[in-house]
Each structure stands twice: as C-alpha cells, then as structure tokens.
C-alpha cells in the first residue's frame, strides 16, 4: 500500500490548478519551444547521429539540469482551468529524495519488485509485456492477451482493446464504454488464468475504456483487478494535465493499484528537435512525480511523422533521457517501444533489438511493444515483446558497455532506417500465430532465429 507521506500533497496540486497564473494555451506551447531551445544552447546539448548511445556523462547531467530549469520555469499547464501550476526547487528536491525506491507488481509466486536501474546496470530489466491498446475483435481479445501473459519473460502484462462489444461500437462516454471496460478487466484476468499464471500483475488493466468513470468502474477485485495490478495516467500533451486525468490520480492514490504515469512527447513537436524533446521528457518525470504522485514512469517519446521511436534521433533521445534520470534520481523509469514495422517481418525484429539494447544499457526497464506505428488493428502479438525482452536480458548477461552497445545499434539502424517511412505492416495476429496452441508460427520463429544468427556476426549473441 502506498505511503502518502512520501509523495507531494495532492490537495496542493488541486489548489494550484485552480489558483495558478492564467495563461493562454498557445502561449504556454510557445514558451515551451522557446525555453527548450534556449536551454539546449545554454547547456550545450547536441544530438550526434553517430553517438546514439552517448558515452558522455556530462551530457546526461546537463540534460538533467536543463530539465530542472525547464520544469521550474515553465510549470505544468492545466487545460481545464487554463492556469499554470508552479513548483519550487525545494518541493522538487524533497519529492525526488522521498520517492519510494521500489514498487511491487503481482501477487504470491508472481510478485515482482521493480527498482531504479543504473546506466550499464548488470541487473535484468523488468519486462512489462504490453499490447499497447492495439484494436482487436472481441473474439481475438483473449488469445491475443494470452500470447503476452504466457511468455516466460513477462514480469507483468497488459492487453489490446476492443472497438465493438457484443456488436455495439464502443463509444467514448457512452454506457457501452463502462460495459466494455469491465469486460476488458475480466478478460485480462481470464487470460492470466488460462496461461497458468493467475497471480501475474497486470500493469494496466484498462485499455478499452478511457473515461475516468469507465476506468474506475472496471477497477474491482471481483472483475480480476487485484492489489499489485496497475493503471496509467497520461500527461495530455507536452507538460499539460487536465481534470479528467487528475480525477484518476485522486482515485488511484487511495486504491491498492500501482499508479504509472505516461509521457508521449512528440519529437519535432512543441519542444522542438531531439535535444529540446529530451529536456522536456526528463521534465515530464517531475510532472508525474509531483502532479500525479506516480510510482513508476513510462515514456513513449515518438517521432512526429513516423510515430515510432526506433529512428536514430529517437534512440539518442531515449538513451540520453534514461542516462540523465538514472544518474540523477531514484525514479523507476520504463521505456515503451514503438516500432514502425509490423509483426513477423525482419525489420520489426531489428527495430525491437535496437530499442531494447539502447533502453537496457541506458537505465530503463522495458515495456514492449507497440508495432506498426500503433495504428493497425490486429497487428500485434506476444512474440514482439519476447524478442525485446530476450535482447534486454542478454544485454545484462553479456555485460555490455555503452560503447559496445552503440556500435551494434548503429549497424542495426543502418539496416532499417531508410525503410521507416514505408515500413511493412507485417501480419495479423492469427496469421503469425498458430491459433490452436497460441504459439508463434514456424515462420515467425525461424525469422527470429535467422536474425539471431545475423546479430552474432555483429558481436551480439542471443541464445
């Protein structure tokens, strides 16, 4: 159960949302862009395409300092009140020092303890297997969810979503959303049971319902959401929150569920290029810590046009942000993989490898994976996180340094980066899994085996 004394006072957050300085949203957006650019110059933060996994600790620390400045200067925007909530340096420091150093998922034999990782940490990353809300049909929900829950390297799992329930389209704000949300929780726990892992943690037990009422309605032990499961609260845009999200915080703080924060800044968007977006992403962690009382922090920075995070600039950003946070805080940080290509393609396997290598070496835990730019129904499976997690475990086993990892990642990127804009969409779940056994097809397995052989040539041995 959470210790409220270790988090910033949430009632104070609500008060500040109602009493902060009034500012037009467009002006806040502009201020972010300007400030991020100025800080990038002041702290001499430069993206380097050949140094995707930077070796320069000083650079990581400067990104961290720039983020502190950004957060203190800019504050957090609440769109419902059009006000800026500000926090002091002392408040930030207090929260960073007091934050609990571990968080538990799952129950009994499935209990996993998540801890803050370090750069080049020899300990294995915790792997949160996730279908990242890919739309699937009602009949396919259970098999798809099982394909994640059953994976041996899955420390926890989460599911896809349905777009229609008993023939009725799931519409935001309608009673059908509540119905479907409850069903969603029940089916995830059922998937855990059918996989022989009834007590496994579900780190996000709600993907179909999004409104706060539907989410809270589905949060019941009777439906299969147990203490040690969790939910996410997202920043609704760069450094912004709204009441709908803060209502989830109000509920989750008092619940037995793990509160995860979710940040998806767009590289090329309001915060500018890779450098500005890196600064902003670190600052989002302060937003989540102080504003949401988050116990773990999930990041999915993405490229504004390609909607993935496996291109060069994105991997640099992921690495430097991970290093900045791992070196300067005790926060539990998790890296969400967003692939451009789809299941059962060689490209997706290389993208997963590059993302996992970069994240693991840079201090992150792993949250694989959204595939095909996270927009195509039925295109996801438990095989993608398996690949990602195997790579992550292997990185720690081999005891890579950042320099070694960088060389491998560069080779991987060279192999796929030109194909990103027209990345293949791959196969649907039932085309790359044997449905009777819920196992990847031989084709998918041998594709992975072939890739492992190629990686061996690069000096990366995945058994």
């Amino acid at each position, binding site marked *: 159960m959470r210790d409220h004394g270790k988090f910033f006072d949430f009632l104070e957050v609500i008060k500040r949302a109602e009493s902060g300085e009034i500012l037009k949203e467009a002006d806040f957006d502009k201020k972010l862009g300007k400030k991020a650019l100025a800080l990038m110059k002041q702290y001499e933060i430069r993206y380097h395409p050949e140094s995707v996994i930077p070796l320069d600790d000083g650079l990581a620390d400067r990104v961290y300092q720039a983020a502190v400045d950004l957060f203190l200067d800019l504050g957090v925007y609440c769109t419902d009140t059009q006000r800026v909530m500000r926090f002091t340096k002392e408040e930030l420091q207090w929260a960073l020092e007091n934050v609990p150093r571990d968080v538990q998922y799952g129950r009994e034999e499935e209990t996993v303890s998540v801890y803050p990782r370090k750069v080049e940490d020899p300990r294995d990353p915790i792997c949160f297997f996730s279908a990242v809300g890919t739309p699937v049909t009602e009949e396919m929900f259970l098999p798809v969810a099982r394909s994640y829950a059953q994976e041996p390297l899955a420390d926890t799992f989460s599911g896809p979503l349905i*777009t229609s329930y008993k023939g009725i389209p799931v*519409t935001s704000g309608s009673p059908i959303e509540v119905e479907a949300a409850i069903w969603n929780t029940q089916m995830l726990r059922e998937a855990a049971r059918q996989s022989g892992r009834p007590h496994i943690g579900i780190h996000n037990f709600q993907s179909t319902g*999004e*409104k706060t009422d539907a989410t809270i309605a589905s949060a019941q032990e009777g439906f299969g959401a147990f203490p040690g499961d969790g939910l996410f609260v997202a920043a609704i*845009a760069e450094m912004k929150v709204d009441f*709908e999200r803060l209502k989830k915080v109000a509920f989750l703080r008092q619940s037995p569920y793990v509160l995860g924060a979710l940040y998806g800044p767009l590289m*090329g968007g309001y915060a500018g290029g890779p450098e500005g977006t890196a600064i902003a992403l670190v600052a989002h962690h302060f937003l989540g810590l102080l504003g949401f009382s988050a116990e773990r922090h999930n990041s999915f920075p993405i490229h*504004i046009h390609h*909607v993935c995070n496996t291109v060069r600039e994105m991997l640099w950003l992921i690495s430097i942000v991970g290093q900045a946070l791992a070196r300067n805080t005790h926060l539990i940080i998790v890296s969400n993989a967003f692939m451009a290509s789809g299941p059962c393609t060689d490209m997706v396997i290389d993208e997963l490898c590059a993302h996992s290598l970069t994240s693991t070496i840079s201090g992150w835990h792993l949250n694989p994976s959204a595939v095909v*730019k996270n927009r195509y129904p039925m295109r996801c499976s438990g095989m993608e996180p398996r690949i990602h997690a195997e790579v992550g475990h292997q990185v720690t086993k081999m005891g890579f340094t950042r320099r070694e990892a960088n060389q491998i990642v560069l080779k991987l990127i060279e192999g796929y980066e030109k194909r990103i804009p027209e990345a293949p969409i791959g196969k649907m779940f039932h085309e790359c899994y044997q449905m009777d056994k819920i196992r990847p097809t031989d084709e998918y397995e041998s594709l992975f085996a072939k890739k492992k052989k190629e990686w061996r040539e690069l000096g990366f041995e995945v058994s």
Partner: protein
Amino acid sequence: MDLFKEMAKAVIEGDEEQTVSLAKEALAKGVDPTEAIEKGFAEGMKEIGRLFETLEIFLPQVIISAEAMTAGVEIFRHYLLGKEGDIPKKTVLLGTIQGDVHDIGKNIVKIMLESNGFKVYDLGRDVPVSNFIEKVKELNPDLIGVSALMTTTMVHMPKLMEALQESGLRTKVKIMLGGAPVLPEWAKKIGADGYGESAMEAVRVAKRLVGLQGEGKGDKA
C-alpha cells in the same frame, strides 16, 4: 520579382518585422495584395511545410513562420478594408471530436490551413457533436475539419454526419476527416467529402473542397 523572394524569405526566417515592412513596401509600390500573398508569403510557407515534413525544422519554427506570415497578411487586409474591400477567405471549422484530447495533429492542420489563406475557427479538443452543429449554424463555414485519434471517439464522426443531415445543414457545408485511425475508405463510407492523411494533404483537400486549386491522394473519399 525580388520583392516576392524577400517576402518568402521573411516568412521562412519567421521575421515578423520584415514581413510587415515588406507588405507595406509592396502596397507603396502598388503591387496587387493577392498576388503578393500568393507569390511571396505563401511560397515561403510552402517551403516551411516542406522543411517540417522532412523535420529539417520543428513545430516551434513552423508556428513562428505562420505568425510572421499572418502579421504581413494583416497589413494587406487592413489596407483593403480601408478601401472597403477585403481578401475573401474561405472558412474552416476545426476540432478534435468528443472524448478525444489528442490535438497535436489537429493543431498542425490548423497552422497549415491558416498559412494557406483559410480562416480557421478552432473549437479545440473534446468537442461534442452538438457544439459542431451550433457553430455551423452560427458561423456558416465553408468546410468542417474533424480529427479523431481513437477508435472510441471516431465513432462520433458518423453521428456528426447524421446530425448535420437532420438539421438540414449537410448540403451547406463540406466535411473532411482526419487522424490516425480514420482511413480514407471509412471516411468515404460514412459520407464525408474528403480525407487527409497529413496536414499538407489537409490543405490540398480543403482547397479542392471549397473550389480553390489543390488535390490530394485521399481526396476522393
């Protein structure tokens, strides 16, 4: 003509003082405002759009250039208004649909439409169907642009189409849809006039729908 090139350059550099003074210069020289906008400022903005598509520049620079262009265009409008004329602008009512707070895509579409001469009424995010209807009645736009990023919210789009029918507004206004889960075939199926895969395409489709030049690959939706 050099003046047009300079105007384009001022937009690309996001230099508001310069766009304003070049607009004044053009007026002093008796250059036709519409021509100056199209061959000068708009060319600059086109280049900005291209640079953003390849991420040689990022959103903040796009916003600054769009503002510089707007400031310059305002000088022309001011002049024409003084002579009881105006630059006719096609109007777009834009918003992210009910239940959906994903608005970055919509905001980029807005910037691109504005810098291509449209007047945009931005209703923001999480806009109820009923609000769209009220605003169509109130503002009488040429076009409605609707964005949805979630499967649970894009289902409000057919409801908007129905509501437009029922209130007798459907024939008075064109409608174009966008956002990642919206596919062109689907937009067509629910009876939309156009679909745009990106902000640049939104501009092309919008132009076609209101009878200006322009085309897009999804515009047959």
